[in-house]
């Protein structure tokens, strides 16, 4: 400390210091201020701006997550599971051949048609999109009953569309008609990953609710299957999907 004081005293008494004192002090002050400005003030100012931006983003995320948590809290799992069951009946996650056979059996019984044969075509699977396969049904019965069967098939809980039909001998005295009908039936596998933290919770629109009501209505309107007139359908045993 004494050494420092001595040295300082020497500098202050130096003739050059005394001569250039008016220049030295401002210069030193200027240099220090410049250094502080360049290496401290400006970087810290930039950092403050970045921090403010980050903070704003974090706060927006917090707001979004709060809203998402509130929405998820209001979801009743049981109600949604019931809704999902209704959609899976309409659009199963696999071919569900027993399901379509059951539906055909029920409708044949309702429309008093005789089943001559059922043929399933091998479906083309296109990843996670909607897939389809054809069901060809051969029946014998009244023309009106065939019309009724087609109508009921397309209005049933399972989504099907008539894609081909062949009829023979109806009108005049012919009472029994042989028909071969091909229906396209749809299925879609369930997605692998659905959860995304930064994605909004999808809410059901009015259209969705109406569609759900319609699907549930068509399920309740389809009665359970019963016995079928001859020829009998062979009971499927073993693999539920003969094409696997």
């Amino acid at each position, binding site marked *: 400390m004494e050494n420092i004081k001595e040295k300082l005293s020497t500098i202050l008494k130096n003739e050059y210091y005394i001569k250039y004192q008016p220049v030295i002090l401002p210069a030193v002050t200027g240099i220090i201020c410049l250094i502080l400005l360049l290496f401290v003030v400006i970087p810290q100012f930039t950092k403050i701006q970045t921090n403010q931006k980050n903070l704003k983003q974090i706060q927006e995320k917090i707001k979004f997550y709060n809203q998402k948590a509130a929405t998820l809290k209001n979801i009743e799992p049981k109600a949604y599971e019931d809704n999902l069951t209704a959609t899976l009946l309409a659009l199963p996650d696999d071919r569900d051949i027993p399901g379509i056979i059951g539906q055909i059996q029920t409708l044949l019984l309702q429309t008093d048609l005789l089943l001559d044969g059922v043929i399933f075509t091998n479906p083309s699977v296109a990843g996670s999109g909607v897939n389809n396969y054809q069901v060809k049904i051969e029946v014998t019965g009244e023309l009106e009953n065939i019309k009724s069967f087609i109508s009921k098939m397309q209005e049933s809980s399972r989504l099907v569309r008539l894609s081909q039909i062949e*009829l023979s001998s109806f009108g005049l005295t012919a009472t029994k008609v042989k028909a071969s009908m091909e229906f396209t039936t749809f299925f879609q596998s369930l997605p692998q990953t659905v959860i995304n933290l930064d994605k909004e919770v999808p809410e059901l629109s009015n259209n969705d609710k109406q569609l759900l009501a319609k699907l549930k209505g068509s399920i309740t309107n389809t009665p359970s299957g019963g016995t079928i007139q001859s020829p009998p359908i062979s009971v499927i045993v073993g693999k539920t999907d003969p094409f696997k």
Partner: protein
Amino acid sequence: MKISINLLPEELKSTVKRKAALSLAKKANIGLLVLMIILTASLFAFVLYDSLKIKSANQELEQLKGKIETYKDQESLAAVLKARLNSINTISQIHSPQNTSFNLIIKIILPDIKVKSLSVGKSSRVIANIETQSTKSLDVFFNSLTDPKVHDGKILGTKIEALSRSQTGQYKADLDISFK
């Protein structure tokens, strides 16, 4: 009357002035330095405050992430249900033109016309093989096939592939009907 007399010599006057100026300059420099130090310290304090705020906000964010994680079943259900409904909605809007063609032909065919075969293919073309004793019914049927008021413009055209009359007076016709 006051008289002021400055008895200082000229050289001393300039020296005093110079010293005063120097002193002012020193004070200004020190003031500027102090100001810079205060500014720097303020900036550091603000940065520290911001960092603490960000840390607190990040902690809150992590807690919320954990909270949302507990609702993953609900989120899965909602997402799958919505996707499913979208697919069903898309499929529901697919109409079966074959169904429309079939229903229209059945509606047009008169009771005294016998249909030996009727085929509605994937392109909605209808191939029909008919028989009738009545020329009037045949005429009415052909007119219905070509009258837009009857078929609502759904039939593009009808081709009579074959038309014959047997000895018993039975008319037979092979028709190829194209739909829109």
